[in-house]
């Protein structure tokens, strides 16, 4: 790791100020991507500004069906939240299957979506749940937030403080994890609220997370896995790498979508 300066922010305002004073700073949340990247010397920020101890950015608040998850909430804390499990078990299950237990103890939802790894799990949930990404400056709809590979709508120095969404009537997330890294080779989050169905895919797109509009249309008229029998997922624009070809990923997307819908059908809520 190259030399760097460590700063601990105790408030969102302090974090923003520290970043504005840094020459080439990076925000540090759980560090589960940033620190390995710095160790490999693929990142060399002059300053790291630790946001993990900002109490105002932690915790889950539920009022009615509105869910607000603080950006510094760990995957583990999401995975064990009983109130959240009652109204949106899909996101609890998603969090419980990110990486390994040590990653879940440190990694945060804000860090995950700010990094926007094309194989990360959370971006699919944000897109399918039509979530709002709340920053210290504004609120950004998830559909505008995820811009491309490792790229988001965040401006330099902008800090995600929370995400907010309305719990869907029903939802499920299914992924096919890479057996070594456990990152999604294809992950599909399906959410249904009334007549509105949103299907978001992670792990498979060349530009990161995307909505599977054809599947949404097919499910709108018939919400069952059979509705996807004739769905053809176009491999154009899908990732092709040593782990899986685009054609294989296209098939995985369809299979994971069907599994997600089967889970919804088999679950009481």
């Amino acid at each position, binding site marked *: *790791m*190259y*030399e*760097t*300066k*460590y700063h*601990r922010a105790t408030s969102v305002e302090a974090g923003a100020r520290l970043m504005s004073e840094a020459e080439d700073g990076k925000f*540090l949340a759980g*560090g*589960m991507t940033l*620190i*390995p990247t*710095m*160790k*490999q010397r693929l990142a060399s920020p002059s300053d*790291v500004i*630790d946001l*993990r*101890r900002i109490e105002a950015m932690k915790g889950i608040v539920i009022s009615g069906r509105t869910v607000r998850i603080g950006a510094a909430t760990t995957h*583990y804390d999401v995975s064990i939240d009983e109130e959240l499990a009652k109204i949106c078990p899909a996101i609890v299950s998603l969090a419980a299957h990110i*990486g*390994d*237990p*040590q*990653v879940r*103890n*440190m990694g945060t939802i804000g860090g995950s979506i700010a990094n926007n790894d094309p194989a990360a799990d959370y971006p699919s949930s944000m897109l399918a749940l039509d979530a709002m990404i709340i920053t210290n400056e504004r609120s950004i709809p998830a559909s505008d937030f995820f811009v491309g590979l490792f790229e988001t709508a965040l401006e330099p120095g902008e800090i995600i403080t929370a995400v907010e969404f309305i719990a869907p009537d029903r939802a499920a997330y299914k992924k096919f994890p890479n057996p070594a890294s*456990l990152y999604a080779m294809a992950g599909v989050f399906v959410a249904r609220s009334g007549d509105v169905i949103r299907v978001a895919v992670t792990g498979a797109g060349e530009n990161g997370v995307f909505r599977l509009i054809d599947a949404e249309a097919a499910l709108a008229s018939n919400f069952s896995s059979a509705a996807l029998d004739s769905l053809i997922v176009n491999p154009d624009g899908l990732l092709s790498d040593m782990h899986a070809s685009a054609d294989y990923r296209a098939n995985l997307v369809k299979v994971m979508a069907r599994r997600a819908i089967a889970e919804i059908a088999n679950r009481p809520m």
Partner: protein
Amino acid sequence: MAKVELFVNGRAVKGEAEDRALLVHFLRENLGLTGTHVGCDTSQCGACVVHVDGRAVKSCTMLLAQASGSSVTTIEGLSQNGELHPLQVAFRENHALQCGFCTPGMIMSSADMIRRHPEGLDEATVRLELEGNICRCTGYHNIVKAVLDASDKLRKAPSEAA
């Protein structure tokens, strides 16, 4: 330089190190707690797992400065009053170590796992939860047995679950 203050195995510790220093290096090189191992150094193998504020983390993937103010438990801090922790006993009795390099991380991860599963464990859960720990002797079978054994014993005698 980062000035840090933390509790390690119940003892207040002060230190100074470069801002880029990793927690594992401080434990090993400054405090001499060499039970915590550096295996892969790429966050894969889990030989460096310690507890930070009660939760298992890979100490090769955390800056020392991040841990300042925290309470850290290493493998050296697990035994109480000269008595091995029930997990340490179970690893010995079940022959759950071959070369022993991964053992400290396996035990620290397993202690966290048992804490998170007061309802008890089954083999599938243990295997899933050990995802972040690699044993290159491939001695997983007895490791899983040892974790199940310790989990059972701790449930029968919860007072020892310190």
